[in-house]
């Protein structure tokens, strides 16, 4: 593994002595799918089956259902609560084991779960949430039998209106193992490591404070399993994160919380966060309730005082200042790559070119509909453009400038599924950063209550010890591994249908996309 202690002798040459001594052995995590069922007793299902008083407890339903929806435990007279999450709904009607029809007393009735109306939103529909949970549980794309309409949301624009134009038959027949989903992160040929990640995504920055340490560690361990990365966010670098150093990105944001030379020296990528899509131009937010003793200690701040990161970096008012920043980091850590995270203003194309010329390896665009632990509502919706526009704008501009292949373009900000990832790449990104999806895999239901009080009632975006204990590290790791695994399978399936051997062939292939609101009669070059 590149940069690990296996190459300690090399490291000593490029790292100051004090850092090399503090590096700890890196942990390997198996990329293995294992069942990781929901941690909730009552899983939310798309369909529910109601049993009325005509039921004579004959047990026929339990006998015919191959999915184990109906549970009549031996020795019990009454049925237990049904396992509705494995019910395949109306698609079962076509089979010979449809319990509703087979019930001799017509005591069963299937209806769509009315609670779904209270769940999700236009961007994350109930189907998308349930499908993501299913993937996190099984490691497989959800079977079409479940009837989840999860590939797109219901926002009515952007990625939700884009579709792939698949050929009737793949031009080349490829096996799954012939398809490469890896991307390289350093295209500058500047003597720094050629880091390659096995999947075209990595985990977004979520600080300790905005999420619990178990969540951070689960993300990091899944990143190890998939040879990709996760990001610290701006809340500092936990001791417990050190065994995963090789897959951690240290973020330097405007608050500089927990930024020390030692933490910069440990990692293979350092990210400058200039802006965040959910609150462009406003800096970070951590409300007082979430500044617990542990968070305050990590950030070297005062317990119970709200933390507002300044904006922008007070030392950066030009591209030259940005370059000065990067030179500092490159000097402190001679093996690291630099990522520059910016949001998507109208002149994002100029910002991207400027970042490249200042020496960045990765331009990371975070679109206006991105996630956050806390942001003013007025900022979430109204400032800067959605990522769909930003990707096309920057990709085309970099191409026109002749530098597209010298910088890695990473997109984030509302990318929810493997289909979104593929579409973002087809629009022009090399890869993406995901965040909310990982949290959904851990049981997030997007109630938007991450920001204050004890934090997330689901034990994810919280620093409250009691709530955070709801998420187990092994379970959390497995859920994210499973999700990544299902996504990779879906991505491979998409590439296979296009006859592509590598995900890099998909980049910028807008000719393979169609928009449901357009005539789609433009001849685009490939």
């Amino acid at each position, binding site marked *: 593994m590149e940069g690990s202690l296996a190459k300690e002798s090399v490291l000593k040459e490029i790292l100051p002595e004090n850092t090399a001594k503090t590096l700890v052995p890196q942990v390997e995590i198996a990329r293995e799918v294992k069942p990781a069922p929901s941690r909730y*007793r009552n899983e939310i299902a798309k369909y529910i089956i109601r049993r009325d008083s005509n039921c004579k407890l004959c047990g026929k339903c339990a006998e015919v259902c191959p999915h184990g929806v109906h549970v009549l435990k031996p020795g019990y007279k009454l049925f237990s*609560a049904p396992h509705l999450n494995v019910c395949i709904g109306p698609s079962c009607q076509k089979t010979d084991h449809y319990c509703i029809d087979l019930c001799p007393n017509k005591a069963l009735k299937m209806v769509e779960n009315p609670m779904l109306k209270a769940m999700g939103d236009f961007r994350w529909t109930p189907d998308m949430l349930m499908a993501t949970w299913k993937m996190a549980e099984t490691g497989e794309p959800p079977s079409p039998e479940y009837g989840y309409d999860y590939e797109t949301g219901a926002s009515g624009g952007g990625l939700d209106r884009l579709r792939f134009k698949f050929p009737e038959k793949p031009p080349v027949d490829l096996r799954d193992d012939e398809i490469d989903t890896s991307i390289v992160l350093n295209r500058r040929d500047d003597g720094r490591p050629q880091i390659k990640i096995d999947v075209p995504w990595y985990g977004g920055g979520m600080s300790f404070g905005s999420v619990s340490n178990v969540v951070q560690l689960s993300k990091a361990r899944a990143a190890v399993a998939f040879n990709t990365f996760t990001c610290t966010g701006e809340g500092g670098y936990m001791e417990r994160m050190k065994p995963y150093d090789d897959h951690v990105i240290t973020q330097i944001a405007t608050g500089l919380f927990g930024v020390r030379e030692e933490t910069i020296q440990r990692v293979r990528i350092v990210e400058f966060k200039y802006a965040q899509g959910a609150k462009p131009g406003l800096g970070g937010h951590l409300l007082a309730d979430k500044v617990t003793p542990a968070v305050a200690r990590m950030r070297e701040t005062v317990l119970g005082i709200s933390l507002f990161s300044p904006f922008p970096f007070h030392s950066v008012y030009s591209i030259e200042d940005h370059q000065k920043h990067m030179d500092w980091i490159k000097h402190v850590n001679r093996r690291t790559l630099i990522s520059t995270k910016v949001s998507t203003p109208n002149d994002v194309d100029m910002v991207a070119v400027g970042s490249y010329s200042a020496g960045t390896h990765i331009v990371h665009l975070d679109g206006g509909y991105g*996630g956050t632990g806390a942001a003013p509502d007025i900022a*979430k919706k109204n400032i800067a453009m959605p990522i769909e526009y930003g990707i096309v704008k920057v990709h085309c501009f970099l191409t026109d400038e002749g530098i597209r292949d010298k910088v890695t373009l990473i997109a984030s900000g509302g990318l929810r599924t493997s289909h979104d990832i593929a579409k973002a790449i087809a629009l022009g990104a090399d890869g993406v950063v995901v965040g909310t999806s990982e949290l959904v895999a851990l049981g997030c239901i997007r109630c938007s209550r991450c920001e204050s009080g004890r934090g997330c009632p689901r034990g994810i975006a919280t620093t409250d010890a009691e709530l955070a204990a709801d998420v187990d590290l092994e379970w959390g790791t497995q859920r994210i591994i499973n999700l990544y695994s299902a996504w990779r399978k879906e991505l491979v399936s998409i590439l296979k249908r296009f006859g592509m051997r590598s995900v890099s062939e998909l980049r910028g292939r807008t000719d393979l996309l169609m928009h449901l609101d357009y005539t789609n009669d433009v001849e685009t070059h490939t």
Partner: protein
Amino acid sequence: MPKKYHIETKKIPPRLPKIGKFGIVDWREDCARCHNCVKKACVYDRYRQETQYIKDLDEFNAMFFECMGCFSCVQKCTKGILALTVNPEYEGMGNGYYTPDIILTTWNQAETAGIPVSGAGYRGKFTGVGFDSMWTDMSEIVRPTRDGIHGREYISTSVDIGRKPKLLSFENNRLTTPLPPLVDLPVPILIDMFPKEYQFPNLMPMLLAVAAKTGTMMIVDREQQGLLGTYNEKHLLNVVFHVGKDASLPTPEILRKSRLIEIADDDGVEQRIEEIKTVNPGLVVAVRVELDSRGEGRSIELAHNPAVEVIHIVSDINGNQTGVETPGFIKDMTRHIHTSLVKEGIRDEVTIIAGGGIALAEHMAKEIICGADAVTINVPLLIALECRFCGSCRDGFDCPAKIETITAQYGVGRMTNLIAVWHDQLIEVMGAMGMREARRLRGETGRALFFEDIEEETFGRLFGKRISS
């Protein structure tokens, strides 16, 4: 350094249980009476509050409490007897334009005077109609810093109302151009007249107090002057009398002590302005133009008249043009008027105030970007008083929120809180945009992204012609 504009606020709790979005349906007959019932573990302690609500129950809607919709109790209940539902009363609030979400956030802002902050990302539609079809832009590097938003730098939200000279002339180093009168407002918000059907006793004195506390002005129909209650000369600094077409002018004494007056548009506008100026040349006169089929054209025509200082364009309460089959929206009509005046080189000479459809702080910022110098509001202030915008009062029924019973402390406090938090949000947006002054925000469409433009620019070249809206 001049004193910074600041509105004193104080938390003003609601009088009634809020109509929350979610409610829990509880099938208690199946309850196993668990010792460690999941209800006790509610992070928000809503169940205890529910019990209190039921104890204090005086109407049915109190049953719907402020559940946060986290589903934790639903998913953890050992018997699975809890279900989450969307409160039908919540869904029934508003009128389509003033959505339940707008009403709820307005209540919260009026209560706390705090900028609404939440976690997770944006949850809504990709784009929409009206103000939802544009985004403000931001500056990646150059801007007043975020410290500015929180105090160390100053972002000015003040605006000048009145006519400005096109150029200044000097002779022997002395200014020879006569300077017209201007009204300086610390915040680009004025309180508009309330439609009669939404008025209630004591509203006017409360609005006057709000205008005084926030340093802005309220527009009062001359014929309703009596409803202001007892007011003194000092209060006239915060009052803009509106004079209808056939109404008589206020007394010369009032005219002499006022700063701004509004007259309804008609053919005799010029003569009326002259009458007013004869009494008080220092009084700024605004002309109120209804945005009907003639509104835009008439506004542009008036701007050419050197006697007209301020044009107050007004759509219906939902921001729509009136009296036409396919109405335009306030933002687009403002943009058209503004752009026309810019092209003709006279935009800076006249002040445009826009009203109607300004339901949220973001609408104010966007309306100013589209070309208004300031905005007028009324319905949001009503909602701040826990109005559900149900229309009962309009239809002659009792108000379910019992607004007519509110105290001055409550009413003034809630409406002041709302204006204060709108001001704070304007500063947030301006900070992100790198704007130091609300005056400079006006017409800065270069700092905005319009859906039609960016969609065409990005997807038009990839996918052809757009076929649906």
